[in-house]
């Protein structure tokens, strides 16, 4: 299992090293001819947010009418009746409501641009974070040999055969790539805090790492060279120098994008996720042909002191909903071709534990928001939280396979007509969920 992972990483790095990152790279088509339909002028955008640790599904989309909801969660349930501060379950349907921390989703819900998918998850029973995350990001539950991310497979599958892909088809707003973006197709990771503040440092180290003639800077906005250039320079074999040069080129480009992006009036909430979304929005608003962006948010593993109306989960929900709303507002008309999707490796136990928290569970929630989303409706079959309805007597059951949503997003939103058989190992897309 671990060895094959390494092999994949190696071939990935060799490829990026050999071609130079963010230059035009020839990417071999693993699945034969491209099955992408003729691309529209402006390509669809997919932003995937991974909420790591296991978002508590039952305090996200809340079955406020079921009697077990309160009795299973004596200290962490959300009251149905408004409290002093006027907050309570946001009843969006007669059976289900949203956590009040998610109130920023309400305008999107009313505009039919937001929809949760409930009781969604993996057919694999694992309650291990690393397995569940691996399985989900590789979109291959139980297949330990698959070591390329589903989004990377998509990028490789739809790569331009002449290597004329945009330099920034995909990126992750973090230091290392999430597994969903790992694989043979080169993707750039932008470490936090480096988007705009490192000008001086880059100029200094540019001279140390660049193959240019010792003069830092160069023509801004243009990559300093096309494929194959610099192949004869000294130290060319050194992967550290190569990675350094790729870093400088991509960060320069990034800074230039930041300058180019029109000023925005949209206010984001403060926090790690929102700032990542803001960074992604800048890239899109600068007119970059970005198709896929990822952002991770760790820390959803609320085994203790999860909170009810106030507390950890509430604060994190506020940032997720507020961040996504701000992001879509920030994109303006580009929001019409953008789908933001959140996922999490599993839900949590329906009963609270002895520490006013919840433990690893099964069925979870996904949010979809954006122009192409058929919102204002809850998708997926709600299995109920009565003692008999629960998976293994403790967790929300899974009624929708997470790959149903992935496949639908790729097909209906990204325009991938036919999904090759081995794209989702051991799985054939069904008729879909209907959410996009």
């Amino acid at each position, binding site marked *: 299992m671990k060895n094959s992972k390494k092999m994949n990483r190696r071939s990935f*790095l060799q490829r990026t090293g050999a071609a130079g990152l963010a230059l035009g790279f020839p990417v071999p088509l693993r699945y034969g001819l491209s099955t992408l339909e003729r691309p529209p002028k402006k390509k669809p955008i997919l932003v995937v947010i991974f909420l790591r640790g296991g978002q508590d599904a039952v305090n996200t989309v809340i079955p406020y009418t079921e009697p077990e909801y309160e009795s299973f969660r004596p200290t962490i349930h959300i009251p149905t009746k408004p409290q002093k501060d006027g907050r309570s379950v946001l009843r969006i349907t007669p059976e289900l409501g949203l956590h009040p921390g998610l109130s920023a989703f309400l305008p999107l819900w009313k505009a039919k641009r937001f929809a949760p998918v409930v009781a969604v998850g993996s057919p694999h029973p694992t309650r291990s974070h690393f397995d569940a995350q691996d399985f989900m990001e590789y979109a291959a539950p139980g297949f330990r040999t698959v070591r390329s991310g589903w989004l990377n497979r998509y990028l490789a599958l739809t790569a331009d055969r002449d290597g004329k892909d945009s330099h920034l088809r995909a990126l992750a707003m973090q230091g290392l790539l999430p597994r969903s973006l790992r694989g043979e197709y080169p993707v750039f990771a932008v*470490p936090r805090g480096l988007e705009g503040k*490192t000008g001086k440092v880059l100029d*200094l180290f540019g001279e*140390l*790492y660049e193959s240019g003639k010792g003069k830092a800077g160069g023509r801004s906005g243009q990559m300093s060279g096309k494929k194959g250039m610099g192949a004869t320079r000294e130290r060319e074999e050194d992967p550290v120098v190569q990675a350094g040069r790729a870093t400088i080129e991509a960060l320069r480009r990034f800074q230039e994008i930041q300058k180019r992006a029109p000023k925005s009036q949209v206010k984001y909430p403060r926090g790690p996720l929102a700032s990542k979304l803001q960074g992604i929005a800048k890239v899109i608003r600068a007119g970059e042909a970005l198709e896929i962006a990822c952002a991770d948010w760790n820390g959803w593993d609320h085994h203790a002191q999860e909170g009810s109306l106030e507390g950890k989960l509430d604060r994190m929900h506020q940032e997720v909903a507020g961040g996504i709303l701000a992001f879509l507002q920030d994109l303006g008309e580009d929001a019409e071709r953008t789908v933001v999707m959140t996922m999490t490796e599993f839900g949590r136990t329906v009963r609270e534990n002895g520490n006013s928290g919840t433990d690893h569970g099964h069925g979870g929630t996904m949010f979809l928001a954006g122009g192409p989303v058929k919102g204002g409706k809850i998708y997926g079959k709600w299995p109920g939280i009565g003692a008999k309805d629960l998976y293994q007597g403790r967790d929300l059951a899974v009624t929708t396979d997470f790959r149903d949503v992935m496949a639908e997003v790729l097909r209906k939103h990204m325009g991938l007509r036919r999904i090759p058989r081995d794209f989702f190992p051991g799985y054939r897309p069904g008729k879909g969920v209907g959410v996009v």
Partner: protein
Amino acid sequence: MQPALWAQGSKNPPGSRVLELTETQKIRHVLSRFAFGPTPGLVERVRRQGLDAWFEEQLECKGKSPQILRDRLADLDTWGRSAGDILLELQRIREDIGPDPKQKDRVRLNRARNLARNQLKDAVLFHAIYSGNQVLETAVDFFRNHFNVTVNKGSVRYYATEYERDILRKGALGSFGWLLEHTAKSPAMLFYLDNYLSRRPPSKQELKGIERRVRRRTKSRKRAEEEVEIAKQRGLNENYGRELLELHTLGVDNYYRQKDVIEVAKALTGWTISRDRKNKTVSFQFRSDMHIPGPKTFLGSVIPEIKKNPVREGEMVLERLVKHKGTAHFLAWKLCRWFIADDPPEDCVQRIAKVFHKTNGEMKAVLRAIYHDSEFWNPKNFQTKFKRPFEFVVSALRVTGAEVRSTRALHRALKVLSEPIYECEDPTGYYDQAEAWNDPGVLAVRWSFAMQLATNKIPGIRIPDSFYADLHPSLPQVWKDQLARKMLPAGIGDKTDKVLDAIIRKVIREQKEVRAGRRKKPLKKVLAPLLVGLLLGSPEFQKQ
């Protein structure tokens, strides 16, 4: 690499094809791999002592640590405590706060919950930076990743202090068998890989007992039925059994199959955690009522049922694994990768595996074998291994003799560089090969860190003036070479040399222009830190 460095003191006659490391290079090589790089003056001290003698002294942990390490550790009040003590203190605070916590109480409680974890991370850093027993520190670093646990899972944050101090630090230069047994029985590992939950499914009688108890307590029949349903789910957990074979001993799919995983897990049922509030201990406990009885077939032979002392069954599994040639090979391969090269040649691995096998994993003998192996001294392995973020940060602090009073910025840097201490979620531990770390993008974080450290911009961390004391008083042109000699084991590369020359000229020119104006900073204060920052961020310093 400078030709001059190659030639210096080389035993090889001119024209010889196999180059050999010079004496100085050998010292620097050992300090790169069996230490987190040199501190000011260390190369000279080792030279005086003799490299072999230094290494042997290190294996016996007879190196002297500076006062600063004792001072820093003395500030970490949980570092000396037991897990039970740490938990008891937390409980006292909980009771003190009472059932209705206010915001400031929550802050206090959170701080208490994080205290041991944060101080553990500090202890790891301080040891790596300041310890005079660097061979021990690198071996502990290896085993911290080999027997990985994360403080982000449940109670591990309270157990990990003991784990680091009483198992990893105590056993890293001892025998592998001792380490394997003690990690297997440690609350940290039992919790991290769930073995403490692993048990035989409850009997009908036990289920009835549960029903009775819950009904009496809750007066609810429904609740009791639910509890029974949950209890029925409890049973064998193969998480630890699998990682024991896959990651700790044999290597993935080597010699074993799924049924071996299950048999190992069965042998280890009942290995769980007990908490004794009276004696302030959290410790290993064998519970025979959780143990699955009967003989187990493991790797083709039988572990007999030992009714009188069933804990022996699991211990026998571990003993067999320690003696297995697959374990020797897997550990040798990992150790060679760690200390020699990302992709060590098979014949070298086999030589080390032989020693491992023969000595039953006596770590001193194994490390000594690596130290004396011809492959270790192969010049192509000199300064060619990419530093992990931890190695980069620690070696930068060591080489500059930095005084670390606050670790906050260091932990933050390690987090951004994706290697926060004791936070690897994956049981593999952090990888040690370049391909895991050399992602495009992240190098820029190293550069920022290098510049901030060099210019003393990191709060609580200072490079002392003494570091610059021996710079030539009137010839700034030679500073670059003076600093490079201290900081870059393989010397300065041509490109770096040229770029630094240009920067020196530029800064001197600018200084002259300032002179016409009013205030000026001494050249040494401007130029020297800039050079240090560039050297720390140079391609040369990213390798060891």
